[in-house]
C-alpha cells in the first residue's frame, strides 16, 4: 500500500540513495547479515530495493533488519540507509503489527502496570512455565532478557528528595526516560546526585516515553505523538541544557524522530539541539577544564559497550574518554558492533537466536575482559549483556558517582 505520510517524511532519506556508490561498506559491517542469510543486507534491501519500491515492498527480508543504524554510521557517502529501511518496514507492517509488538513497545505502560505488583511481576518474568506461555501466546522468547520491576519509581524518590540548598552552577533539565523511571531507578538517582554534586540545579519535569520502541516497531503515529509530547515536557527551561542518562532515547530526540518520521516541530528541533547524553555533557565540561577531577581511585578493569543508538549520534564514545579520567580504572572498549537486543528485536521469538548470535562477539569480550562487571549506556543493552553473561552491567555514571564518593 502507498503510505503518503511515511514517504513524505522520508523525502530527504530517499534523496540520499542517489549517493550510494555500491561500495558495500555497509554490508561488511551489518551485524545481522554477519550472522544470518535470512537478511539480504542493508544495501540490498535499502538503496538497491528502494528504487523499485514506490510504496510497495519488494523484499520481505527487510523485517530482519534490527534498526541498529550501523549501515548509516559507516556509510562514507551519507546515504541514510537505516532510515530508508525503517520507513519501508513501517509501511510494510502497517495495519498488521502483531499484538506483541504493540505491547513491548510501550515501556511506560509495562513499568506502570508492573510497579504495584513488582515482586509478582518479577516472579512471573523469571518463572519458566510463565515464560513458556508468554512465548507461545505472545511470541516473546522464553529466554529473552527482561527488566526487573521495582516497587518504587524514580519519581517516588524525587518527590522526597531534598536538593542541595545553594547550587553553584546553572540549571539542567534531567531526562531519565521510561526505563529510568521504572526499571533503572538507581541509575537515575545516581545521575541526579552527580549533577547536584557538581553544583547544578537539577530540574526534573514530568516526562513520558520518547516513542523509540514504537518507531522501531513501525508504529509511527503513536511514536510521533509521544515524541512531540516529550519535546514539550523537556522544553520547560529554554536556556538550560537537557541532560539524559537514557542514551538511546537521546538519539530519538536528536535526530531519529526527524530523520525517520519527519517530525519537524520547532519544539522537537530545539530540544534535539539542547539535549546531551550525560557522558557527553560531562566530557564537554572536562574538555573545557570545568569538571572537578578529585576522583577517588577505582581499581578495576571493565569492558565497555557503546550502544548502537549512541554511536548513531556521531559524537564518538564520550564515556570511554570520560572514564579515562578516573584513576585506577581501565575501561576496555569491546569494539563490538551490537549486543543483539536492538531495543525489542532480540526478545522476539523469531529473532532471538539472531540477536544472540549478533551479541556473541560482545559476550565473549565481556567474559574475557571482566566476567563480573561491564559498562554500557543503554538499559535494554545492559539487560541483554547481563542476561547473556551473568555480569553486573552498569551505566557509566555508576563510576562517576563512586569516584566522587557519593555512594
Amino acid at each position: 500500500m502507498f503510505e503518503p505520510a511515511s514517504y513524505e517524511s522520508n523525502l530527504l532519506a530517499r534523496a540520499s540513495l542517489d549517493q550510494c556508490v555500491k561500495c558495500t561498506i555497509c554490508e561488511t559491517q551489518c551485524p545481522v547479515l554477519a550472522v544470518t542469510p535470512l537478511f539480504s543486507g542493508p544495501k540490498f534491501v535499502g538503496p538497491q530495493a528502494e528504487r523499485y519500491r514506490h510504496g510497495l515492498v519488494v523484499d520481505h527480508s527487510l523485517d530482519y533488519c534490527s534498526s541498529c543504524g550501523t549501515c548509516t554510521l559507516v556509510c562514507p557517502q551519507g546515504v541514510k540507509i537505516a532510515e530508508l529501511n525503517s520507513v519501508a518496514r513501517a509501511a510494510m507492517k502497517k495495519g498488521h503489527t502483531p499484538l506483541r509488538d504493540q505491547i513491548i513497545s510501550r515501556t511506560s505502560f509495562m513499568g506502570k502496570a508492573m510497579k504495584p505488583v513488582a515482586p509478582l511481576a518479577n516472579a512471573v518474568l523469571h518463572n519458566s512455565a510463565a515464560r513458556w506461555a508468554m512465548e507461545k501466546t505472545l511470541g516473546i522468547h522464553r529466554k529473552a532478557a527482561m527488566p526487573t520491576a521495582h516497587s518504587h519509581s524514580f519519581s517516588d524518590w524525587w518527590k522526597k528528595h531534598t536538593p542541595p540548598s545553594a547550587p553553584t552552577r546553572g540549571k539542567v533539565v534531567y531526562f531519565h526516560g521510561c526505563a529510568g523511571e521504572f526499571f533503572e531507578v538507581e541509575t537515575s538517582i545516581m545521575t541526579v546526585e552527580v549533577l547536584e554534586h557538581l553544583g547544578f540545579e537539577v530540574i526534573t519535569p514530568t516526562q513520558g516515553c520518547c516513542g523509540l520502541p514504537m518507531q522501531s516497531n513501525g508504529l509511527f503515529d503513536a511514536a510521533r505523538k509521544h515524541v512531540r509530547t516529550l519535546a514539550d515536557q523537556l522544553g520547560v527551561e529554554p536556556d538550560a541544557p537537557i541532560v539524559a542518562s537514557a542514551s538511546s532515547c537521546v538519539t530519538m530526540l536528536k535526530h531519529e524522530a526527524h530523520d525517520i518520521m519527519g517530525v519537524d516541530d520547532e519544539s522537537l528541533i530545539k530540544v534535539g539541539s539542547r539535549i546531551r547524553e550525560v557522558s557527553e555533557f560531562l566530557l564537554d565540561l572536562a574538555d573545557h577544564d570545568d569538571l572537578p577531577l578529585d576522583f577517588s581511585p577505582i581499581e578495576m578493569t571493565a569492558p565497555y559497550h557503546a550502544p548502537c543508538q549512541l554511536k548513531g549520534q556521531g559524537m564518538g564514545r564520550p564515556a570511554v574518554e570520560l572514564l579515562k579520567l578516573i584513576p585506577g580504572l581501565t575501561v576496555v572498549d569491546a569494539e563490538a558492533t551490537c549486543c543483539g537486543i536492538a531495543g525489542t528485536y532480540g526478545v522476539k521469538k523469531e529473532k532471538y537466536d539472531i540477536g544472540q548470535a549478533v551479541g556473541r562477539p560482545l559476550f565473549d569480550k565481556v567474559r574475557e575482559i571482566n566476567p563480573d562487571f561491564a559498562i554500557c549506556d543503554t538499559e535494554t543493552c545492559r539487560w541483554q549483556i547481563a542476561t547473556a553473561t551473568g555480569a553486573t552491567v552498569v551505566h557509566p555514571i555508576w563510576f562517576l558517582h563512586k569516584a566522587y564518593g557519593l555512594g
Partner: protein
Amino acid sequence: MTDVIVIGAGLAGLSASIRAAQAGRRVTLLTFGLGGLQLGQGTIDVLGYTTSGETGAGGSGPGPDRPVARPFDQLPGYVRAHRDHPYAHFSVDQVREAVDWLAGLTPDLLVPGDGANHVVPTALGAMRPTYLVQPSMVWPDPTSVAVVGPRQIKDFYPDLAAANLEKTAQVRTKGYHIDLPARPGEVDSSPVAYASSLDDPAFLKRFAELVAQAIGDEQAVCLPAILGLRRTDAWRQLSEILGRPVVETLLAPPSIPGMRLNEALTTQAKAAGVRVVLGSQVTGFESDGRVITAVTLRQAGRDQNFPASQIIYAPGGFESGALTMDSYGHVHETLFDLPLVGAEQKDLLTGDYWADQKLFTVGVGVDDSMRPVSADKQPVYQNLRVAGGLLPGAIRWTEKSGDAIAVTSALAAVDAVFATSAPQGGTN
C-alpha cells in the same frame, strides 16, 4: 582538548593520527563513515607502473604502462619526468621510511619490504605489482598453479583467472571448483561471509579437504582473498594441510585483506589514544584568516565545534566528495574552498574509456610541509595540512602509487607540525 584534528580515516588519516599520537599529541580523528582502505587491496603500492606520459612511441594515444620491479630505484627518474607529481615533494628515503614505518606498525599483516615489488594474482588473472603484501599473497614462483574457488562465491571464476594466469604469470594452470556455501543454504555468498566462516577452524578444515580433493599435483594453489577476517593465519593452516603454498587472489571490493588492514590500523590508532568520532561530517570551520581555530562537525541534533591548534585534512578526492565538479565544469574543494592545481586544464574529461581522465590529476597544491598554497605559493592557512588523495598530479590507480603517497604525505604533514610548534602540556 585536542592538539591535532585529523579529518578522514583512510590510509592517510589513520597514518597521520597514529604518527601524531605516537609523538605524544592528543589527536581527534573525525570521519564521515569508514575510510577507503577496505575498498583497496590490503597491499601498499609505491609505484607499480611507469606511465610514459601523454603520448606513446607512435605519437598517438597513451603509451604502454611498464611494470616496475624496484620502485625506489625508479622514483627519481619518474619524478624528473613528472614534475607535478606528489612524490616531487619527498626524497626517495622519505617515501621508503614512511612505507617501512607502516610495515613496522603491522608486522603480522604486512611483509617487510626489500626494495622489490611483489606481484599478486587478481580474479581476472592479472599479476598486479605492489610493494608491501600480506603474507598470504607472496607469489612462490611456481611452474604450475591450481586456481580454486567455491561455486557459491560472488565474482570469482577459477577458469577465467587460470586461463589468464597462463599468459601473465607464465605458469601451467588449471581452474577447479569446490561446492561449499559459506553458510548452509546460501547460493551466492559474499567474501565477508566466507572470510568469517574461515575464521572457524572446523569450516576451514572442511574447506581444505574439498580443495585437496579437487586439485591435481600443481605446485601452488590460488584461492580467492577470503582466507580469514579476524584471524590472520588461516592461509598458513590451509597451506600446511594442502602441503604446498597458498596464494590469496585479489577480488573486487569489499576486500577482505583491506578490511584486515583497516581494522589493524584503526585498532592501533585507538590504542595510541586517538579519539575517533565516526559518522558525522565536517561541514565548516572558523578562522581568523590566517589560522583555522575550529572545525564544525554536523552531529545528530546540532553542529559542534572542535577547536584545535593543528588540522590535517585527509578526506580523499572525488570519490569521497571532497572534490566536486559543478555543472559549469568547475572543480571545487568542498570544505575549505582551497585553491586547486590542474583545474584549468583543457579536456578534463574525455569520452575515451581507456584514456586517463585528467580530472583526476586535479587537487590541492601544497608546499613541502603539506600546507595548501595559493597561486603565489603562500600558505593559505598556517595550521592546515593536506595528505593523501587530495594531492594533485597523479592518477593513482593507473600507476599504482596511492598508498605510499598517502602514508608519506601524512607523515610529512605530522612531522612538519612538530618542527613548527612545541607540544602543549596536558591541561587535564
